[in-house]
């Protein structure tokens, strides 16, 4: 073995994945080859250097939760997981193909070839096409005019009704407010009246007391 061949064995030895036979072979080579021995020691040192880089905590709170799946998602998932979707698709395609074959019509008339296919059977009788006359157009225009007029009329009526309702609401509201204001004025006037009456009573009493006092003073003189 050449020196280059021992490189792989050095890796095995460095990470304890070497067999006993290979280990003794490597050891005997390292004893005799100074260059390889130096290389092996350097690699060991590098590996030890790398070991000094400790793992770090990710500090991520990664938690998985299940969400209640909607019925549609559930069905879709089931179809996906059981390959029912593929089978269903094939079945639908087969039915459509069958229908189109059943409803295929081939006609050869006067040497002309006609081929028609559809999923559903077409009615044998062709649909009669109606010709539109000037009168029909006139009638249609009239109908449209009447319809628009009716719509406008309805709209106008509704506006009128809405205005009346609004006026009534305004009147009621105004009336309520007036009554409230009147009550408020009445209460205030009453309070003022009672207040004034009380004050007059108090003044009367004070005057009476004063007159009594003056009389008593006069009598004592």
């Amino acid at each position, binding site marked *: 073995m050449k020196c280059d061949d021992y*490189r*792989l064995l*050095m*890796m*095995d030895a460095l*990470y304890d*994945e070497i067999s006993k036979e290979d280990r003794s072979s490597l050891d005997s080579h390292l004893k005799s080859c100074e260059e390889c021995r130096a290389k092996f020691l*350097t*690699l060991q*040192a*590098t*590996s*030890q*250097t*790398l*070991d*000094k*880089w*400790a*793992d*770090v*905590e*990710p500090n*991520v709170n*990664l*938690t*998985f*939760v*299940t969400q209640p799946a909607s019925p549609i998602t559930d069905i879709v998932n089931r179809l996906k997981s059981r390959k029912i979707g593929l089978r269903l698709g094939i079945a639908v395609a087969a039915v459509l193909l069958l229908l189109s074959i059943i409803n295929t019509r081939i006609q050869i008339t006067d040497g002309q070839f006609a081929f028609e296919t559809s999923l559903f059977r077409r009615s044998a009788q062709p649909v009669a096409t109606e010709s539109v006359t000037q009168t029909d157009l006139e009638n249609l225009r009239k109908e449209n005019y009447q319809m628009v007029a009716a719509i406008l009329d309805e709209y106008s009526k509704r506006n009128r009704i809405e205005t009346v309702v609004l006026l009534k609401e305004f009147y009621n509201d105004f009336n309520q407010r007036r009554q409230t204001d009147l009550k408020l004025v009445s209460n205030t006037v009453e309070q003022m009246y009672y207040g004034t009456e009380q004050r007059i009573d108090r003044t009367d009493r004070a005057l009476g007391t004063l007159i009594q006092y003056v009389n008593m003073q006069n009598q004592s003189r």
Partner: protein
Amino acid sequence: MDDEFLIREFNSGSISAFNTLVWRWEKPIFNFILRHIGDHDQAKDVMQCCFIRAFKSLGKLKNHARFSTWLYQIALNLCRDELKKRKYLTYSISEVRDYDDCEEKGNKVVIADQSQDPTRHVYREDLAKLLQKALMSIPEEQRVVIIMKQYHGLKFTEIAEILKAPLNTIKSRMYYGLEALQKVLNSWGVDREDLGYEM
């Protein structure tokens, strides 16, 4: 409860079984992504995408014993998508000289001594940044093998399975990856003493 049991439970409709798998695997997967793409915030986003993808397709996993390699495969694909998306440029050695926390003294990169410690050992955060830059500077195919082997303890056969590459190719990538890393660190003037080894 091993992974296989939890997967069976999840397939029977238990969401909490999947959450247990997430709880069990989020740290290794996050660190795998972080070391691969080198950006903390993006690593979080990619990790979330990884578990969402796993959630959606776990039912299709036939060999439950392969769960971990399958999960790493998803994470790796997402990392590669992410790197393609942002057209990630690997750091060249000259760019590393602009390293924020370092100042260049001659040809030696000196790590800023944030703790005012008289010894000039590289501190944990600085070391992580330094090794991240170093990893980002080597080819992606070597980086991924180193991350899987060094930090996640995957066997070479498992790595070969995930990367769909021959076993000897994987070992070879590991060898040249380690060699390249050592060269990068040497070029920055980072020696074993800086890294806190007893010399």
